[in-house]
Structures are given as C-alpha cells and as structure tokens.
C-alpha cells in the first residue's frame, strides 16, 4: 500500500506543503537571516552580524520594559487564571443544580476575539477609574491590572472546562475509600485530587503561559501601550519596532527571534517540569 500511496504525493501532500512553505517555512528562514541584516524591504538586506540583537536592548528601553512587563503579566495571569479555573471546576463537579448552564456562561468569553474584548473592557475599566478622575492611559499599572482582569475573564472558562474533564477522570472509588478511612476534605484534595488532576494542570499551565506571553490583540485594543509605551508587551513592542519607524526593521526581526527563543525555552521547561509531577493511574 505504501508504494501505491507514494505516487499520490502531488494530491495528498503537495497542496499543504506549498501553503506551509509560503506561509511558514520560507518566512521563518528569511526571518532568521534578516535578523542579522539591515533592511527596509526584503531585497536590500546588508549583513550586520549581531548588531540588531545588541540594538534591541541598547537602542532604547522599550524592549527591556516590554520584556519585564510581559514576564510579570504572564506570572500573575498564569497563577490567577489557573486558580480560579480550578476552583470553578471543583464547584461544578459536585452535582450543583444547572451545572451545564454555568459551564456555558463561564466558557463564552473565550470565543470573543481579542480586539472586541479589549474595547469592551476599556469601557468598563475607564468607567470605574472615572470615579478617581483618571482613565486607563494614566498609569501602566492600570493597564497591567486591566489586562490581568481581561485575561481572567477570557481564559478562566476555557481552563475550567479542561479541569472539569480532569476531575471527572478521577475514579470515585479512590476518594470514597479515602473518606471512609477518615481523610478530611482537604487531605483528599491535597493527596488525591491534586496529583490526579496533574495532566490537566500541565495543559492549562502550558496554554495560559504561551497565550499570556504572546498576547497582542487585547494589548493593542485595551491600552495600545499607553502611557507612552509603558504598558506595551513584547508582541506589541515588536510590531511597533517593525512598523513604527523606518530603519528599525532589522531590530524588529532580531527582537522577534529573541521572543521566539524565550517562548520555546519556557514552554519546554514548563512541560518537562509539570510532566514530571504527573502520576499514572
């Protein structure tokens, strides 16, 4: 069969492969190369070695600020989203009335796009801040906590669904046996539920981590970096470097490569860390 199928390469593989080359592989390879060059269009590239990487950090403070802002934001949202999602999942797996309706409501914000979410929360947050006579562009702190609230509203329901699936996989016999042996609820939670739900935690941490780190649309719509560029995250800073002023395209591409490397590194470290804590049934 393999031999016959092989001849069908043009039909089965070629269309996807061509699209993959155009949309990903060639741009990726060019992106790596261009990060070592000075260019304004793709054709006028001049080799400059590691200069763009140096300038990414030293030309101004924007990239360092954005990196620090992104790291803080990622840590806070990963912790809060996962905590709320897990608590909601615990609540919704105890046979409360109308469980499905609650699930439907909590999950819904996840389907709304980042731009719409950003403007929606801008209205609410500015409405609240008005009582103090300011708005979200007044301080990067407001932008930071605004983004955290937005992220929690968007992602909690999604992660809750995954935690619910994880909790439903725990055999009843296990928790019941522990209860009969006199274990308290918190002992059961600590020694049975938490270890057993670890695969879901791995996935949820991975998804919240990468999504928070890569956040762009919400950042653009909610604050667009204001005040100044203080609330700009990495993705937005890279965008501004590329399209904000001419002559910085190489620096933008170098920043993008760094962005990609950090993301790949933290994803890899996180997966191996939480995977090692998973127990098999």
């Amino acid at each position, binding site marked *: *069969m393999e031999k016959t*199928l092989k001849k*069908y*390469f043009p*039909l*089965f*593989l070629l269309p*996807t*492969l061509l*699209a*993959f080359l*155009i*949309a*990903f*592989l*060639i741009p*990726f390879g060019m*992106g790596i190369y261009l990060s070592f060059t000075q260019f304004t*269009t*793709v054709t006028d590239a001049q080799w400059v070695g590691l200069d763009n990487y140096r300038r990414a950090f030293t030309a101004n403070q924007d990239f360092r600020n954005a990196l620090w802002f992104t790291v803080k934001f990622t840590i806070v949202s990963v912790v809060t989203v996962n905590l709320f999602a897990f608590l909601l999942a615990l*609540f919704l797996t*105890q*046979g*409360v*009335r109308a469980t499905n309706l*609650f*699930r439907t409501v*909590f999950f*819904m*914000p996840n*389907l709304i*796009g980042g*731009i*719409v979410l950003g*403007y*929606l*929360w801008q*209205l*609410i947050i500015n*409405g609240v801040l*008005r009582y103090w006579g300011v708005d979200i562009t007044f301080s990067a702190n407001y932008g930071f906590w605004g983004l955290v609230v937005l992220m929690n*509203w968007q992602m909690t*329901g999604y992660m809750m669904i*995954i935690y619910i*699936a994880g909790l439903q996989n725990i055999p009843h016999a296990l928790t019941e046996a522990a209860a009969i042996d006199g274990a308290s609820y918190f002992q059961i939670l600590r020694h049975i539920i938490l270890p057993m739900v670890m695969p879901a935690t791995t*996935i949820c941490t991975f998804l919240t981590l990468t999504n928070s780190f*890569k956040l*762009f*649309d919400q950042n*653009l*719509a909610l604050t667009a970096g204001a005040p100044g560029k203080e609330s700009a995250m990495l*993705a937005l800073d890279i965008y501004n470097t*590329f399209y904000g002023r001419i002559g910085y395209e190489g620096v*933008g*591409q170098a920043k*993008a*490569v760094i*962005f*990609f490397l950090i*993301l790949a590194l933290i994803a890899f470290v996180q997966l191996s860390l939480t995977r090692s804590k998973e127990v098999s049934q």
Partner: protein
Amino acid sequence: MKSMKLHREIQFWLLVFLALAFLAPIGIVLYNSFKGQFYITDNPFAFPSKETFAGLRNYISGIEKTDFFRAFGYSLFITVGSVAAIVLLCSMTAWYLVRVQNIFTKALYYLFVFSMIVPFQMVMFTMSKIVNLLRLDHPLGLTVVYLGFGAGLSVFMFSGFVRGIPLEIEEAAMIDGSGPVQTFFQIVFPILRPTAITVAILNAMWIWNDYLLPYLTIGSKYRTIPVAIQYLQGGYGSRDMGALMAMLILSIIPIVIFYLSAQKYIISGVVAGAVKG
C-alpha cells in the same frame, strides 16, 4: 445531611452571582449601545434614560462607518474557506505522512509540530511581503496562508488519530481494488470525523477573530470584522463611542449564535484539542 444541603445551596447562589458578574460586561456594552455617543464615556454604568436614549442611531452609523456587512462577508468567506481547506487537505497530509514512512515524511512531520510553537511576530514581516509578492493579498489568497499557518496544529492532531486506525482496514480495501483516493474518502475520512470537527472548531475560532494577519496582508482593501473595528477606533481624532459599542455587540451576536447552536461540539472539541495539543 442538612448541612450538606445548605452547603449546596450556598454554592449554587455563589455560582449564580459569579455567572451574572461574568455576563455583566456584555450587558453594559449592550445598553450603552443604545445611548447617545456623548453620554457613554460620561457614565457607562447608567442605564439609558429618556434624555440619553438614541434608538438604533449608533447601529446605523456604525454599520455605515465600518461597512459592517461587507466586513462580515469577508470574515465569513475567509473563515469558511480556510477551515474547509484545512480540514480536507491537512487530514490527507496527515494520512500520507503516517502511512508513508521515510526520512522526508518524518522530517516534515517534525517541522509541522515545530511550527506550532513559533509566534506570529517571528514571521509576520517576511510572510506579508511574500503574500504581496505572490499576489495572494485577497480573501481567496488568505485561505492559502491560513492553510499553511494552521497546518501545524491540524496535521499534528490528525496524525495522532490516524496512528490509532488499524492498517488492516485500509489494506483490505486496497486489496478489494480501491485506490488511495477512494480508500481515503470512503474509509479513513469517515473514521476521522470527530477529529475533523475538533480541528474545524479550533481553527474557526482562531481565524474568525484573527486581527493582525488580515490587517497586514489585505487590511487596506478588504477589512474583516476585527480590522474594521480597529479602524473605527483609530485615526481621525474623536472616536464615535456609540458606533463602537454597537459594532462590539454586532460582532458578538454571530459568535453567541454559533456557540449556542454548536455548544456540545465546541466544548468537547476544545477538551480534545487541549489534550492532544
């Protein structure tokens, strides 16, 4: 036993409160969309009154300013076209990659997996240049781009599922004289249906809401809904808050309808997608 019941009751009402708090932001935008544009920023939490009520004025001006129905058409065309291409072509690709084992297919499979971790900013500049160069800068062309960009996750998910299909079924069909095309469409693809639904939903959610890719490639000529909303906001000094509120609501409505009608598939698709991814 009684305390258990009370416990449940407290939990239930806590959840009701949380659910209402979750829905409140959408509710607030909804009633603000019926207020005159200058009354919105003043006090977004006040309900429309006789004085501030604007009827459908915001909707009319918003639809005019964003050319909403055209944007809706572009978004729909790009999403449906891309998702159809992704589901069909990526499942074929995954089958080929799993069943034909050599260095080339193995390397290609890992490249697809690798592409999942690469953020869009890494390729956005070079990719939009190539799209312009190849004249793919129109809605139909974008389906090709989305196929290429969505291929990583989709091929990965289909491959995982194809590996679970016993080879004997396909071999029996081939011995009975059906070629690869027939075998794929009559035997393999029907088995892949649950994965196909998951892949379709995950990609539809992403493509429908995607902003930066269509903005950079076709944004000047063809505005999808997110791009149109962003244009409404930026640029000409004072922004029309009324039109913005109305457009937020108009863009949420199709999502809610889609969600409520396909909820079962969406939630199980998201779980399946997460477990695989």
